């Protein structure tokens, strides 16, 4: 991978392909029983997975979920299908599902309670991956801020506060169908903006 420098363009498509290849080889190593490859994946995505769980559940449970996500990757590495998305996305989705499963089994918790548990952002070990993540994160947050207010608000409630579509509708004084439509359109617009922007000037 290339190292980002001031004034250089970062080719997202190329970095994405390189990342997928890197992930594919690591998971192949996991399938072969190489625990060092699992450790590398954990070092790369552990903070992401843990952070996702921590937003939704308490710190002890988040740590357990984080561990379980990677144990599940070890036990069933073939569940990741590279043609359907990156390992990063796959692990992120599992983490959210596990956290929500925990909520289902343990009772109702408020999103604000969970947000109080948030800690400082982590430093992700792989420099180029971290750069990509930070650029992607900055980009998507900027794109989010640029959405029409109703779409942005609905996404914030659904994603960051973890509300259901019905709860988003109640909070915004709309119908459930309208809330759902705003979230879907807003997220698709965010995705389009990321994929359309193939290169980003490095600041």
């Amino acid at each position: 991978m290339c190292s980002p420098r001031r004034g250089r363009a970062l080719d997202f498509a190329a970095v994405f392909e390189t990342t997928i290849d890197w992930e594919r080889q690591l998971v192949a190593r996991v399938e072969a029983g190489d625990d060092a490859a699992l450790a590398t994946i954990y070092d790369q995505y552990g903070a992401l997975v843990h952070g996702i769980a921590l937003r939704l559940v308490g710190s002890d449970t988040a740590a357990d979920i984080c561990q379980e996500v990677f144990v599940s990757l070890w036990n069933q590495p073939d569940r990741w299908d590279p043609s359907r998305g990156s390992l990063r996305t796959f692990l992120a989705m599992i983490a959210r599902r596990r956290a929500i499963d925990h909520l289902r089994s343990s009772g109702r918790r408020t999103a604000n309670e969970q947000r109080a548990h948030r800690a400082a952002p982590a430093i992700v070990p792989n420099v180029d991956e971290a750069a990509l993540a930070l650029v992607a994160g900055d980009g998507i947050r900027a794109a989010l801020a640029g959405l029409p207010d109703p779409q942005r608000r609905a996404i914030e409630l659904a994603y960051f506060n973890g509300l259901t579509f019905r709860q988003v509708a109640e909070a915004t004084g709309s119908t459930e169908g309208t809330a759902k439509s705003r979230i879907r359109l807003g997220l698709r617009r965010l995705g389009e903006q990321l994929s359309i922007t193939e290169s980003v000037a490095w600041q």
Partner: protein
Amino acid sequence: MNRDIDGLDDLDSRASEWGVAPVLAALAESDATSPPASIRSRLLERVAASPRAHAEPMPPGELYASRVAALQSLLAELDDDDWGCVASPYEWTVHGLIAHLLVIEQYSAALLGLGAMPLGDAGDHLALGADAIAAELEGSPQATVEHWSAVAQSIVDHVGSDRFDPDAPMSMHGWPFSVSSGLVARAFELWTHTDDICRATGRDTRSAGPRELRTMSSFSVSSLPFLLPSVDPDLPMAPTRVVLTGSGGGTFDIGGRGERAALVVTDVVDYCRVVARRIDPGELERTVEGDTRLVAGLLEASRAFAV
């Protein structure tokens, strides 16, 4: 506001359907938070306690019989024209290659006490039984196949008999094998020549089963520390992890305990083709960390049995 966790209809249940899962992962970057340091060690302890269940290695006799059957199946498909195709990397035709296998099977059978040793220099795998090969080429390919099948079957029958001793010594071409390891080496050659014939006759090569690959690759990798001095006496063996990816692969730690000096990752089938001298070590797609000279030496050593 309380989260409605009953009758859930929310973003996570719709993310994949809407194709926005990557967007959610990107949003999650802002939440990345290092887990407690203890989680990493606990994770690796749990993984160590539940090592990967790989394909079960085949007993060597079963592996040999399986490769004999695979080659017989291929030979039964061949057309008249196929027998005259040159079986690269040799100068033999497909017919000649089967005649060579007949001689080597006779040699193996003789080592097991099942017949007479073929004439020629037993130390030279390719030159052994040259006259017998020439004689076979005077007859029909089908006759040679019958002769080879009969000798191979005698070995298969022996493996299933009370007289079979898998641990008995069996020196092949000067290599100090046991009978078991000798059978694996024979299976390796049969697999390789099955591939050779497929290529010579324009057929797709046929993958060996996971258990077969596991048995052959395990045999090869475990022998690497002992073979290394044969290619570089000055290169000391050191702890090395060999990761063979793909069905039938696995993770092997060789060279003793201690700090790992090298890691090499490659595809299990490609590795077996290096062992069989069908891929040059320099052309093998692999990932190497650590001592590259050691890895190069081990890959070169992996080919020591093949001729």
